[in-house]
């Protein structure tokens, strides 16, 4: 008896939803095996990374904090990837968003008022969007591939951050430390649940996901993005400009990455430091795919990836597993998800070999 792949008439909706969960489950199984082979306690690694953050309620606030930037960035990326625009430089837009917002913060540092924090957020969005506008301009004007430009600009943004915190923006009271001044109370994210570390960024992330879901499913813009992404030729025939879609995709994904950046700077960090880039922009790529480029899927996937970050920190202290292991688990998830895509487009069919059929 043999199995054969048969192309489905239409991609399976069920499989699209089932495969991400299967990929995570399979990652645990394979991860346990691989890390046992590498000489670690594989089962304990999976337990600490995937389950401890969920079973210990005092870890939940950490999950919210880690999931917030991942969800905000990945929601933007999913819009971009739907349009077939490969913005992989969200990390750079995240950094520049934080820089732009901090710039406003430094200008308003001696002032008070409830308008300061929202203004910083707006500056963050504008900064991220402006930084993503560079690849948008180069792609639409000169047909330069956005994969390479967005990534190159990420390396440039790290240097810009270093220049500022080691140079003109260095706090005069930092005693030589490369860091900006601490944000004032009016410049920091308000806490929303007393006694926890959960700040206003978390509800913002949820609102962003819901808003983008609504826009993508209900508006002409959403339809345009999906149409251009699915078939550029047909979309052009329908009167949608491919260039406009490239611009919108990059501005939305860049702006949201910038928002995540300034929220992170005014929240967990409290100031800009050279250690500010923490690869959320790259991890968000996994979140976007694991969430099936759907804002609601991204909410779940962002939480799943946040679990691995928090769990990775737990495993570091409890079973001395190096934090880099988290990266391997995350890459495995993406590999398995992409492999699982075959079930979305194909199904297995039991086939009877020719010889048996002839004999019968």
């Amino acid at each position, binding site marked *: 008896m043999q199995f054969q792949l048969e*192309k489905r008439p239409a991609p399976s909706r069920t499989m699209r939803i089932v495969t991400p969960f299967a990929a995570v489950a399979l990652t645990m199984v394979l991860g346990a095996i691989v890390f046992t082979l*590498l000489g670690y306690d594989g089962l304990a690694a999976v337990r600490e990374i995937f389950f401890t953050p969920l079973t210990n309620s005092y870890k939940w606030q950490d999950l919210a904090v880690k999931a917030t930037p991942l969800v905000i960035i990945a929601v933007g990326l999913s819009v971009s990837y739907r349009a077939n625009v*490969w913005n*992989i430089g969200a990390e750079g837009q995240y950094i520049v968003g934080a820089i732009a917002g901090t710039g406003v913060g430094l200008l308003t540092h001696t002032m008070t008022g409830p308008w300061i924090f929202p203004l910083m957020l707006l500056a963050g969005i504008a900064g991220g969007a402006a930084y993503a506008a560079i690849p948008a301009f*180069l792609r639409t004007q*000169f*047909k*330069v*591939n956005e*994969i*390479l*430009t967005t*990534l*190159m*600009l990420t*390396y*440039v943004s790290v*240097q*810009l951050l*270093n*220049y500022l915190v*080691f*140079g003109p923006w260095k706090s005069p009271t930092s005693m030589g430390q490369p860091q900006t001044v601490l944000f004032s109370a009016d410049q920091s994210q308000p806490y929303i649940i007393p006694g926890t570390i959960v700040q206003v960024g978390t509800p913002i992330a949820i609102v962003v996901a819901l808003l983008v879901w609504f826009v993508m499913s209900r508006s002409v813009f959403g339809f345009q993005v999906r149409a251009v992404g699915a078939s550029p030729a047909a979309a052009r025939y329908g009167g949608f400009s491919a260039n406009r879609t490239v611009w919108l995709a990059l501005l939305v994904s860049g702006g949201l990455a910038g928002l995540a950046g300034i929220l992170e700077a005014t929240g967990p960090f409290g100031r800009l430091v050279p250690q500010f880039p923490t690869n959320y922009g*790259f991890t968000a*790529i*996994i979140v976007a*795919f694991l969430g099936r480029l759907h804002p609601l899927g991204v909410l779940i996937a962002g939480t799943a990836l946040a679990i691995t970050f928090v769990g990775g920190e737990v495993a570091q202290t409890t079973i001395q597993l*190096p934090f*880099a*292991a*988290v*990266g*391997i688990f*995350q*890459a*495995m998830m*993406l*590999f398995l998800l*992409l*492999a699982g*895509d*075959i079930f979305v*487009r194909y199904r297995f069919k039991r086939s009877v070999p020719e010889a048996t059929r002839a004999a019968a």
Partner: protein
Amino acid sequence: MTLDLIIPIIITLVGASTPILLAGLGELVAEKSGVLNLGVEGMMLIGAVITVAVVLLTGNHWLAIICAAGASAAAALIFGFLTLSLSANQVATGLALTIFGTGFSALFGQPYTGKAVPLFRSPFPPELAADPVWRVVFGYSPLVYFSLIMVVAVWWFLQRTRAGLILRAVGENDLSAHSIGYSVIGVRYLAVAFGGAMAGIAGSCFPLILTPQWVERLTTGRGWIALALVVFAAWRPFRLLAGAYLFGLVMTLEVYAKAAGGGFRVLPSELWAALPYLATILVLVLISMRRGGSSSAPACLGKPFLPTG
């Protein structure tokens, strides 16, 4: 400028150019067969960390390079299996490979972090390279000579051999190649594995020529520059050589700007560090302006092969 200044600059330039040249050659062959592998950076990191481990354990540079090539080729085959056998999205899978390589190298490299790795020095007798002028000819690591041989070898293979012709046919028109009876998937697997091996050897250059130790993310985005370089070279090996050395020059300026004072100090060191990446963007713009939008990319680049539609 005096000779004392020019010669070290040339030596640094050649060293900086070699990894992007090697990785670029591997990616060029893969792309010629129609496969876009964005995992170069990850495969380079795997190659670099394996090199450090093997050199520190055995002291044998050649063995280390072979192991690096093997490990990165194996990683490339994971990518190959997903994109070729399961026709997964090449962009996403390549990114996954880079994320995997970054994580793997960080984990695997931990015991070796910061330990000094003996450099892989010139294979020629030291007397030959004693004279400063002859150093420019005989003073390099074997990896440098290997990279130059590979430029000619890849050109000869693609332009002058039957196998090279088949590989190009697969990249230009996979359906025709398939209907004549060539195995499109088989050719692409080989091309992807070659690309991986070359990226692994490119990774070896970092601990063996450039910075003789392991630190996380040792390759600092050079794999991405190698990808840009292939576009810059219009998929031609000798133009890749020219491009790699041009980028090598930019990266060398960065090194000297940090070390030397004087005129270089006018600009902040961070700007010099950003220069290779800015130069890459500028070059990409110039290329597409000159070509007026018509690309010389292989026709099937990045598209999955689906014989039954």
